């Protein structure tokens, strides 16, 4: 186990809990949802040393204490824009040409 898989007291971490097991879930759920547990994640400062996947208690930003399983240490955000979308690439070029043609035909526009 490497050092990065251990959280120390005061580290910013994410904790995972199961709020409801499948048997306790609401009725009228689609089968694909009903067969899964309802899980919860929240971030906070670790109260003590813990290993990834092991038990930990955190103090959240509002001061609540939440106990669960350590699911991430110093969790980041990796959402992005991604690659350009080929299906959108022509839109600006086409519309600018269409606008120029319309304005030329209507003596400079409306």
């Amino acid at each position: 186990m490497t050092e990065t898989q251990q959280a120390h007291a005061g580290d910013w971490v994410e904790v995972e809990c199961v709020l409801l097991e499948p048997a306790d879930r609401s009725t009228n759920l689609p089968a694909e949802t009903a067969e899964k547990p309802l899980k919860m994640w929240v971030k906070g400062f670790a109260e003590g040393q813990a290993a990834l996947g092991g038990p930990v208690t955190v103090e959240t930003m509002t001061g609540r204490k939440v106990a669960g399983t350590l699911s991430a240490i110093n969790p980041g955000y990796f959402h992005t824009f991604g690659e350009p979308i080929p299906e959108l690439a022509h839109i600006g070029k086409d519309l600018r040409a269409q606008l120029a043609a319309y304005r030329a035909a209507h003596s400079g526009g409306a």
Partner: protein
Amino acid sequence: MASKFDATMARRGEIMRRALGMDYSEFELSPIAFDYERMMDDHGYSLDDIVAIQTKAGVGHTPLLELHNLTDLVRSVSPAGNGARIFVKDEAANLAGAFKDRRASVSIHVAKEKGYEGVIAATSGNYGAAVASQAARASLRCIIVQETYDSRKIGQPEIVEKARICEAYGAEVVQLTIGPELFAHFLDLLDQTGYFAASLYSSFGVSGIETLGLEVAEETRALTGAYPTACVITHAGGGNTTGTARGLRRAGATDTQIVAASVDLSGLHMASDVDFNRKSFTTGHTGFGVPFATWPDRADVPRNAARPLRYIDRYLTVTQGEVFYMTEALVKLEGLERGPAGNTAMTAAVSLARELPREATVVVQETEYTGAGKHHWAQLNFAKQMGVEVRSGDPRDNKPGTVIVVPERLDQIQASDFDVAHMRASYVRNALQAAPEGYTPTSADIAFLAADSNSSAADVEAMLADLAAKEA
């Protein structure tokens, strides 16, 4: 099945009374009717008071922009003499990037005034950012509860971004997998903390949106000499439609047509672990728009202040592909890089403007911020990763969750009319079902149902007779 959630749900009324600082029972008139206007006025703030609260909070007074290039393009594909002038209220200019700041600012003001230490909101959308931002300014603690991940812990990028921004504002973000039990956990947190429930559907929140309608009316008149012919509103839970329409009316714009617009997500189940990451839209869609309009009191407050059927003249739906097309068009033509969900009304407005004469004005009353995760590229890349096909073609071939068809040309954008009469009848049926079995509506109930669905008493009586005939 007797979980801790059932025990929490059983105490729902008591928890919400404390968390809202308001007893809704005093507005109830019968098993069906309640005094809507009295509930809306109960907070005691005038529209001027709300403008003052919002100005202090850094909210409102956003620019109303005329979209000259888009208008000319619409005219290029309209019948001769048609092509209304198109305007947009750039609500992304609010402090946290959306009209939701208007909603949050009033709730946070009330929470602060009533002495709560913190606020909690259940939202996966821009409202979370708005509440977190306003709570930071008011030095209140803040918890945002969001439905973020599917069972594999794959998050919709727009919601992941919303978690980021809420955490940036110092909020605690509680992230859940899919399911309506989120509400019970929300109640549990309210009970545990004693915080204020910054509900999207309280009178505080919806009153906060009235200033948007007021600004649309006054600014359009200043620019064009008249109130808007039509105001197009991205419609989900109904607060945007209700608040904007009320504000327009209060400003005197009583003839402005109220057009709600949603992305068509028919066929997708809102509580499905599989469909969750195949929606490509987290709000502004029919999955919220239809059920909340036809039964507003499904919300987290005893009586929902958002009652869109009272105000909707017309309800237009557009496809996912059409909205992504318009989002890209708006960036390139008007220099407005904004979030796709907020451009739902923009897409419907393009369709509507083609039907209207050149002298008419169509105002799209919001935009929202964009960026990593929220951007239309991010949404489409994520859709592809989730196995949704993305291609160019005829938007009529768009099928939510299966294929997103991006139009090839502007003239392919064509909104569809959703049957509002059918929604009114569904609403009346739902109201009747919520009353005790065997209850017969009184004439006062019929008058309430008529007002609540923007129908006549005779219409409601016909709907009731129709329901009775179906039962028999």
